[in-house]
């Protein structure tokens, strides 16, 4: 248990009945970092976050969060942690101001009025503070939630898919705010499905089926995947996907916008397969594999337990 680790958990297991949601996850996250938590739906991201902040008791495993034991000192952890739930969980029948005041009182912030005023000001919601929180648009709800969970200056911020269903501009603003908080010394663990968001993190942890599949910096993860990727663009690309799937060396085929990415780890075989499928209206070139390619490969491999450790 090192003092400079914000999160230090080992062998976390959570079972619900006979279903194992999290299966032996280790995380050692230093203070002040911004980490991304990735993985398909149902991979155990939310459950892991809930165990870290003391909302769920781990079935097995142990660890500390901000130096406090996650099983026994949940109360202390809660005081210094801000947790933003996946679903908007503030009170929609209370106004923006009333929500913030409630949170401020629960954390015993003083003076409530002035702190809430300042929060509203920085949110740009001073004019709308008397509106019901339920009447806000998706993007504003997220901003309100972020402001509410950071009002008590937590040392650790846990964000569970904070930008799901939010428009691109709002997402960008949201991430600017996360980086600003990080420069103030906050440790941030954020789960997401967006690759561009993952690339803004110092380090990412990828979960699948409750297990940690990979952890590391984005370029390292791409490199470690040893993928060779060919990108095909042009009119006839739509017809090609089906033909390329299952060809020798082709481990996965996926669209990125209008382009087709064909990836595999065996350069010779994949090159031959792509050559064989060549046509006049499609232009092929080799590209650097993207994080998403790496993840698609990881996901495809996760079932067969090809765990890669950082």
């Amino acid at each position, binding site marked *: 248990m090192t003092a400079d680790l914000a999160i230090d958990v080992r062998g976390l297991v959570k079972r619900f009945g006979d279903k194992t949601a999290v299966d032996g996850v280790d995380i050692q996250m230093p203070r002040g970092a911004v980490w991304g938590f990735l993985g398909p739906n149902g991979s155990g991201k939310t459950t892991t976050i*809930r165990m870290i*902040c*003391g*909302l*769920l*008791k781990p079935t097995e495993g142990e660890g500390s969060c901000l130096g406090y034991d996650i099983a026994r000192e*949940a*109360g202390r952890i*809660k*005081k210094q*942690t801000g*947790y933003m*739930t996946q*679903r*908007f*969980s*503030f*009170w*929609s029948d209370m106004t923006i101001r009333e929500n913030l005041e409630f*949170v401020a009182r*629960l*954390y015993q912030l003083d003076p409530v009025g002035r702190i809430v005023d300042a929060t509203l000001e920085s949110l740009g919601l001073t004019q709308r503070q008397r509106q019901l929180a339920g009447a806000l648009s998706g993007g504003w709800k997220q901003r309100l939630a972020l402001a509410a969970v950071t009002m008590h200056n937590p040392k650790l911020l846990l964000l569970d898919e904070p930008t799901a269903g939010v428009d691109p501009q709002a997402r960008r603003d949201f991430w600017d705010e996360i980086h600003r908080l990080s420069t103030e010394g906050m440790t941030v663990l954020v789960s997401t499905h967006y690759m561009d968001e993952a690339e803004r993190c110092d380090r990412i942890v990828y979960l699948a089926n409750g297990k940690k599949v990979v952890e590391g910096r984005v370029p390292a993860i791409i490199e470690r995947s040893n993928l060779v990727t060919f990108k095909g663009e042009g009119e006839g690309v739509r017809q090609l996907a089906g033909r390329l799937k299952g060809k020798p060396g082709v481990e996965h085929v996926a669209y990125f916008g209008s382009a087709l990415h064909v990836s595999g780890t065996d350069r010779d075989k994949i090159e031959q397969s792509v050559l064989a499928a060549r046509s006049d209206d499609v232009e092929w070139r080799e590209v650097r594999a993207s994080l998403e390619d790496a993840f698609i490969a990881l996901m495809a491999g996760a079932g067969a337990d090809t765990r890669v450790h950082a």
Partner: protein
Amino acid sequence: MTGARASLSRIWAVFMKELVQMRRDRLTFGMMFGIPIVQLILFGFAINTDPRNLPTAVHLEEQTPIVRTILSGLEVSGYYDIVMETPDPRETADLLARGEVAFVVSIPAGFTERLIRGDRPQILIEADASDPAAASNAIARAEAIISSALRLDLRGPLENLAARRQPFEVVVHAKYNPEGITQYNIVPGLLGVILTMTLVMITGMAMTREVERGTMENLLAMPARPLEVMAGKIAPYVLIGGIQTVVILTAARFLFDVPFVGALWMLLLGVAVFVLANLALGFTFSTIAQSQMQAMQLTFFFFLPSLLLSGFMFPFRGMPGWAQAIGETLPLTHFLRIVRGVMLKGADFTQLLTSLLAMSTFTLVVIGIVMARYRRTLD
């Protein structure tokens, strides 16, 4: 025709969907079948508007064969159940106020002698008439019961007495509500019924609402202890209970002219404990129910027996022993004794202590359950 068929198939689709959802909601499903059966059996056997075997104390100033005949006649009638004999006439008022007995039958010294002389001596029956329905049949039949019992004894030289009009006189003192005004009994009782109804339901829904709207996770993630959340959630409703009490008591006084002979502080103490009992129960319901709808159903599940087995609607003493035992566990039963005791009988504190203790026990047990059940975590 195809339009009608299409419409039918859509109705069928919705019908099937409702059935599936109904089956998923176990609690509701159980209540739809379990509750009617339980209630039918419970209330069908328990409710009796012609209560018998009412506990009776006797105060006898003489012991003669005639007196024994009268007493056995009362017993045999099925209405009076003689549970004790009290030598001290001053104790009779206390027994009634405490609710230990429903009647006190007093037979004065020299009764037999005066009966034989043809003086028409008096038998005194003091009755707890705070619930007019409970006592009325037993009182109405008292004279007939006694005279038919005496008919066997009044033979030979005494036959002429039997032939005359009643050789004795039954004097009834209907205490606490001499005119048998129903409101005197119902209005104070309604205080308890209204408090039960509103408080259990509101608190039952208060916590469930957080779960239903997903705000529970947020509340749990913030630093508030279970007891703190519970206290904070219950406090506003204590206030509401207080306001309801003031409104009902004011109406009882000025609208229904219900007498208030006891001490107000005693009633308020009873109200306080009763309100807490109901709020704690409502809170427990909210930890069991998955939705506000279920919380509502649980409230009704509790409310109906409270109404029917507490002595509010039907005489408590008219119920069989097992039903009285269930009734004894309900806070409303004890609250009714307190509110009627204070308002109508002017009962003193020691007379109410048992009821207060019973309600407090209920509250503590329920709080214990709720503390064990309340989820500190989302598990």
